[in-house]
């Protein structure tokens, strides 16, 4: 499993949006699959133009998420978001500056407050879960 530093190094190589987003699509393909039974309204993240599902699992004090989308670029972005947030304690999750990481990767355009792109809704959802599991 790649860590954030390796990911940042990989992103430094790209020239132009095509190469960068080809890589994002590839990351989406490698995303841990989400069981079909979770692809229901219950696990849907609201505020996304595409369908986005996010399922948490809290084990040994760490949060782990599975996610998926029917849009392939969004799925790639989910893969990056989960790489940032997965296997952290709720406290750690709340200290992550996701905007800064996305800016470093050159992907900040994916985290706009627009209603079109639901990635901010997904980040908000992850923080909500962190709140809920924090004790």
């Amino acid at each position, binding site marked *: 499993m790649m860590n954030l530093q390796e990911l940042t190094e990989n992103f430094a190589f790209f020239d132009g949006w095509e190469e960068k987003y080809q890589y994002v699509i590839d990351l989406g393909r490698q995303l841990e699959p989400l069981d079909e039974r979770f692809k229901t309204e219950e696990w849907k993240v609201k505020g996304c*133009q*595409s369908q986005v599902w996010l399922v948490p699992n809290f084990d040994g004090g760490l949060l782990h998420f599975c996610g998926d989308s029917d849009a392939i670029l969004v799925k790639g972005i989910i893969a990056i978001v989960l790489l940032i947030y997965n296997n952290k304690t709720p406290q750690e999750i709340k200290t992550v500056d996701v905007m800064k990481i996305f800016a470093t990767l050159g992907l900040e355009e994916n985290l706009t407050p627009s209603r079109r792109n639901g990635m901010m809704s997904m980040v908000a959802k992850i923080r909500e879960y962190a709140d809920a599991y924090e004790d």
Partner: protein
Amino acid sequence: MYDVYQIRKDFPILAEKVNGKSVAFLDSAASAQKPTVVLDKMYEVYTNAYANPHRGSYFFAEQITREFENARCVVQKFINAESAKEIVFTRNATESINLVAATWGAKYLHAGDEVLISEAEHHANLVPWQHICEVTGAKLKVFAVSDEGDFVEENFIKKLNDKTKLVAVTAMSNVLGTIFPIKQITQKAHDAGALVLVDACQFAAHYPVDVQKWNCDFLAFSGHKAYGPTGIGALYGKAEILREMPPYQFGGDMIDNVTFDKTTFADIPARFEAGTAAFVQAIGMAEGLKYMENIGLDNLVSHENELTAYTLNLLEQVPNLQIVGMAKNRGGVFSFDVKGIHPQDLAFVLNKENVAVRTGHHCAQPIVNRMGYTSLARASFGLYTVKEDIDALFAALIKAEKFFREN
């Protein structure tokens, strides 16, 4: 026809570059760009002639009242209403429709009555009716369009009966581009004893409106889709119908006489315009309509017809692209799906190529679903749209198709 390249100079935003490249703006159906005359007029009012209309009797107040009422006359002439009293200024087409639902609907709709809408309505001409039907116990009925998106008279007639109190229908679908035969619909509806409300917010930005010829009872449209500012729209209602309707909101400007015991209300249209109106926007809206009239509505129609044919021809050459809405009578709105590519993914690449289109359900979920989709991309024209914009769309679609096929 007119020189569209010359016209484009009237729209400062069209010269804006994004990442050093010009933008193909193909989202005028969501909101149109503004010509300098509209912006200048509003600036001039704020800087030289500003006061609250209908109140003071000093120079600025008299002047602004004249300008505001003149704007009403411009709207009246634009849609060929019999009297300026029949024009109520609202925030937008949505508010115009809500006004009718909340006042006329609350007074005249009862349990067992029916409101009939087309399957192609956007939420603005659907949700207000759904709501007032729930409140009054009336039923919302829907007539189907064909699979291509055409108006089908027999589908309409089948749903029309003596319980139908109102037919609320769009003059032009914001998803399918279909143009509905309003005169024909109105005639049948009136024969059945129903009133007709026309949602003209797409239509009025492209084609001449004639409420007397159509004989519709209400018509709603907005300023911002017709080259005017946001925050302003108009409701037309036949005077004799408006006069029987209770007020919409209460406060200043809509009253005749007020005591602590009782208030009597002003005549139309003031009765429906409580509080300080968006009068600078109304003046701006009128300026946008005059701008269209100066070019000539017939010229706008010819230009749009030419672009429509050009677009259909190009889009048909994009692999795996399906145009959703192929009605015989259609305007410059093109919703489409590229098989295997999610519209949001598609929009991402189009944005990278500086092509501005809308994606999603277009505030009209039922018709998007009815056509077999949850989300679509849509390109739409304004009077400044040129073939080069369509060429840019075509090139970006080819690039997107290749990008996602190879990745």
